[in-house]
């Protein structure tokens, strides 16, 4: 495959966005689970002294990991752009697509920028007053887990669009999976109330079960976005099925365009 | 109305209500008054009865009875998984306690 043929592929922007999406979610997982070890989350019941030890134990990880997010976090917009495109491809009003775009564009700041800032500020001065450090610790975890409305409403908008769509862009079961994901945003709300137990920000229900649902949801939508790109024919009617497998479908799409 | 009334669904409803009322009987039989005692027998019975009701609702109300075999098997599997998970979690909790 030469460079020129890649350039002339009508789906090149879609594929670029898709690979950037995969790259972003991989980076996100690696940073949050491996480099910063901020997930699974710290304990909400830690005393100021324990919080200080927690920060000391992952000083470099926090600073380097979140620096990576500070540099590359904007790639999150590629997933958002693809999803907006998918909704636009459906037989529903574009208002759904634009609502989704705006909701998730806003979500980036409280959804992941705040935790990066709070944890960086916490880690950069290990000798800070422990009570103030705990303030940053709470701010980081709660802004991260507790930014609920945008994801709740965003999932519901995507769900409604999928269920109303006649162009078969996504299977209907994925529409219902959006509802399951939206419900996890309801379930996480008690993390604003409890300092411990299953509903706290690190709790079995509010974190572990939710993260499994969210992980499944994310994996599924990345896969389905890939299917959508493979099936895309740049028309306005129903998306064709993947008849002869990936490459063949692509050739057909090129011939049609 | 005679022709449109579905006897089978009514019978199912009666059975479900009957099982629900059984709970009252169980509670009464075990007794306890103001501060009841713990009882594994009651717990296991309550869970099993609830799962029986779930299966009846699925088979009859949700019409899995007429559905393709795959769905029948999947819903039955769900009930089995639920039973295993719930009783397992209860047993594990008692072991740890």
């Amino acid at each position, binding site marked *: 495959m030469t460079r020129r043929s890649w350039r002339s592929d009508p789906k090149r922007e879609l594929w670029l966005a898709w690979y950037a999406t995969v790259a972003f979610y991989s980076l996100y997982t690696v940073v949050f689970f491996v480099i910063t070890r901020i997930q699974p989350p710290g304990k909400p019941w830690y005393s100021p002294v324990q919080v200080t030890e927690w920060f000391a134990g992952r000083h470099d990880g926090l600073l380097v990991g979140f620096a990576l997010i500070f540099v590359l976090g904007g790639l999150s917009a590629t997933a958002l752009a693809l999803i907006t495109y998918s909704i636009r491809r459906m037989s529903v009003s574009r208002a759904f697509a634009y609502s989704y775009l705006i909701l998730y564009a806003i979500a980036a700041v409280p959804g992941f920028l705040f935790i990066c800032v709070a944890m960086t500020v916490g880690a950069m001065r290990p000798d800070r007053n422990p009570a103030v450090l705990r303030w940053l610790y709470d701010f980081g975890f709660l802004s991260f887990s507790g930014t609920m409305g945008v994801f709740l409403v965003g999932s519901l908008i995507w769900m409604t669009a999928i269920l109303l769509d006649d162009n078969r862009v996504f299977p209907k079961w994925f529409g219902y*999976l959006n509802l399951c994901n939206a*419900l996890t945003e309801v379930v996480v709300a008690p993390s604003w109330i409890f300092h411990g137990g299953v509903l706290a920000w690190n709790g*079995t229900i509010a974190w572990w079960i939710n993260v499994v649902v969210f992980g499944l949801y994310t994996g599924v939508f990345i896969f389905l976005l890939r299917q959508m790109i493979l099936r895309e024919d740049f028309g306005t009617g129903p998306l064709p099925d993947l008849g002869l497998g990936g490459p063949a479908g692509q050739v057909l799409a090129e011939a049609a365009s | 109305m005679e022709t449109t009334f579905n006897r089978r669904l009514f019978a199912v409803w009666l059975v479900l209500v009957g099982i*629900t009322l059984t709970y009252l009987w169980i509670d009464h039989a075990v007794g306890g008054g103001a501060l009841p005692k713990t009882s594994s027998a*009651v717990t296991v019975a309550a869970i099993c009865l*609830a799962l029986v009701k779930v299966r009846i609702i699925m088979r009859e*109300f949700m019409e899995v009875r007429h559905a393709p075999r795959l769905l029948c098997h999947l819903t039955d599997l*769900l009930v089995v998984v639920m039973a295993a998970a719930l009783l397992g979690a209860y047993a594990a*909790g008692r072991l740890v306690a």
Partner: protein
Amino acid sequence: MIATASGTRVATAREPRHVPGQPDMWFFVLFESLVFTSYFCVYLFNRARHETAFLQGQSHLILWLGVVDTIVLLTSSWAVACGVQHARAGRYQAARRDAILTAACGLVFLALKIVEWARLIHMGKTFTSSQFFQYYFFLTGIHCVHLLIGFIVLGVLVVQLSGEHRRSQVVVETCATYWHTVDFFWVLIFALLYVVR
């Protein structure tokens, strides 16, 4: 006996086999059931570790109120099941009446729930007052969210049954399937919160 992929009906003496509603809704039913099962497992595991404390909290619940809740919701399920059969036979008036009856039962359930919550909160038993009530308010609350979504689903059902050009048996059955799911979640929650010892 098994319906073919395109769903063509096989003329036999018995009813042909078909998936009630969208198969996609069954994905939701199975998936959400697993999510609820995980909540129940967490609850039962922790309950078994501190049985007396949980039982003490539980003794503040009124069992017969839970029984009434359950019967009301079972009745609503029965009504919507009848509605599906009416719709299948083309008796849309009757089906619509059943759908409204279902919603009415749902509203009674919701009212009973609110009364029960108000009573407990008045007694000082709140979301944060004890382990048992944490689970109680969480499980009844998340079920209530499903119930509220159910009212939207029933609204779709009534609209479907009202307009002649809109009627789709698949959508009718899909809506009914959702409502039954709300019902059987409650059956489990009732057993786990009110009855177990």
